């Protein structure tokens, strides 16, 4: 078959799959411009654009239901989500990479047994771990603090496992060459292994950052004070006993994810170019 035609067909398939993926986002973007009465309709467009929803969330104009400005701080929520996710991601990538290095490039007795134990802890359903985990946090005095939001998420078997899988594929010859050059394990780790694991690290960073930016259950129990609210917890403000202001949730969510999409576009480019750069360096 003609090569150009083949490429055209690829695009064609991807387009229709892509449409199904983009649909919820379109609907949400449309809903964020609807008045409350139209939220339930499946139609993508509001009968009359209602950009007030954004202004209400950003406290530029009062909420028509109460005639008062909403009692919330969207920029602070955004900062908190970003702050927590950035710390968690950096710590997790660093500690996971170090542990993965020990589990893949270093030889020691009982290595794989210890690793299986590590993995094992991921298999205990998180539902039962919630209460004991929380009690540990109470003992450590970390409830209702930024540290309480960051630390428990920063050390994961998931990241260690992922990066180990990337590290074990690298040829042994790198280590041997480094050893002949007299490099210390730290130099081997920083200058050889880390750059070569770049796609894995970028993937882990994307997953961790987005996952923690939007995580709900843990911050819900950790946060008591308003100033610590992250975006998902902040969104609870739009749910009251007397119904929820879905249109405001949608406006807030759109504002929440548009910067994230931009970040994703930047990050995923690193995913592709990984090996070429790594190849040059290594």
């Amino acid at each position, binding site marked *: 078959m003609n090569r150009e035609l083949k490429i055209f067909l690829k*695009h064609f398939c991807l387009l229709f799959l892509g449409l199904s993926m983009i649909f919820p986002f379109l609907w949400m973007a449309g809903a964020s411009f609807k008045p409350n009465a139209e939220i339930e309709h499946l139609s993508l467009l509001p009968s009359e654009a209602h950009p007030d929803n954004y202004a209400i969330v950003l406290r530029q104009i009062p909420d028509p239901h109460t005639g008062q400005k909403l009692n919330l701080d969207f920029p602070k929520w955004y900062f908190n989500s970003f702050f927590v996710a950035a710390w968690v991601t950096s710590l997790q990538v660093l500690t996971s990479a*170090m542990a993965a290095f020990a589990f893949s490039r270093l030889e020691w007795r009982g290595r794989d047994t210890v690793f299986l134990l590590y993995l094992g802890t991921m*298999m205990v359903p998180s539902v*039962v771990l919630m209460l004991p985990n929380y009690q*540990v946090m109470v003992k450590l005095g970390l409830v209702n603090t930024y540290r309480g939001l960051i630390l428990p998420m920063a050390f994961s078997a998931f990241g260690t*496992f992922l990066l180990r899988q990337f590290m074990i594929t690298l040829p042994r010859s790198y280590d041997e060459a480094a050893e002949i050059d007299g490099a210390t394990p730290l130099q081997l780790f920083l200058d050889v292994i880390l750059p070569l694991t770049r796609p894995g690290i970028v993937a882990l960073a994307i997953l961790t950052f*987005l996952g923690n930016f939007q995580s709900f259950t843990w911050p819900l129990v950790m946060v008591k004070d308003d100033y610590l609210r992250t975006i998902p917890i902040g969104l609870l403000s739009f749910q009251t006993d007397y119904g929820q202001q879905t249109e405001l949730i949608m406006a807030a969510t759109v504002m929440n*994810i548009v910067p994230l999409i931009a970040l994703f576009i930047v990050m995923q480019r690193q995913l592709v170019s990984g090996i070429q750069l790594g*190849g040059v360096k290594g």
Partner: protein
Amino acid sequence: MKRRQPLVVGLFLAPNLAGFLVFTLVPVALTFAGSFTNWSLRPALPLEFVGLQNYSRLIHDRSFYLYLYNTAYLMLALPLAIGGALFLAVLLHGNLNFRHARNRARATWASALVSALSAAALWFAGSENLACVVAALGALGTLGFALGSTAYRTTFYLPNFTAGAATILLWTQLYNPNVGLINQGIARVGGFFGVAVTGPGWLTSTRSLLGFLPWPEWFNNGGFGVGAREAIMLMGIWAAIGGNNLILFLAGLSNIPPELNEAAEIDGAGGWQRFRHITWPQLAPTTFFIVIISLIAGLQGGFEQARMMTNGGPAGTTTTLSYYIYLQGFERLDLGYGSAVAWMLFLLVFGLTALQWRRGARDGAD
């Protein structure tokens, strides 16, 4: 260097291990101990060691088997979710650019113009929603032709950004048996061929595609058809093929030295042969990772959907083990029993993982 090895290992492990011990191992050990007690949220009930009582109760608990069946049933979607992601990853990693820049420009402009014109026509004809859809398709096409895989990757990852409440609310709406878009679409396609088709009951129905399985009478198998379990599986596949698995596969593909493929191409290997002999074996560690993680997530899965979409219903057909643990621990206040269920689940996952592990080791993934 060899002599200092234990110290080096210790130093590299220490940061992760320290956090891991405090924040993971301690709670894990507590629930393990708890599963042998009458651990309860009721303070009036003094904590007592009850031996294997929770476990023997579990063996006779028919709800446990039903919910285990539900969990396993929902996991049937995993191969599709993983395979779909792999297929997409290979497609997106490959070359999506036309050989001639002229063709690329042509395709870009053509898709922009055609979609803009037809969207405008639809808009003025009064079907505004269809116009939006066509415009979105056109925009995506234009970006896709111009930017290549970046546009698609971002698009496919979108369901993960809108994750949580918004997606769940929208799907519930789409699945509405009477006014939902899916059943309306089915009816319209049927109407086109002159047949009156009634769509499935989706989230309202206890039917399932394996509903004909012989099963004791207490199990509400609902008969053959498409029901709530299929609805949840479909939604899961939709969210998974473009999500984290795709990212991981893409990372794995980037890790394959391009020289390998180039050499094979020079030797005249076709696309399938290159996939079979280069991509697939080189990707094995990533695939292995995804399979294990999906197994773990699958056996613990279905919680959010049960909590937010179905309450575990209709008639318990979408209650999975993790939701059952929640019900036991928090609604029946019986954490000891919840922990026992959790540890039974652990045994299952661990067994399956160990099995995979040995297979992975044999296939050279380890």
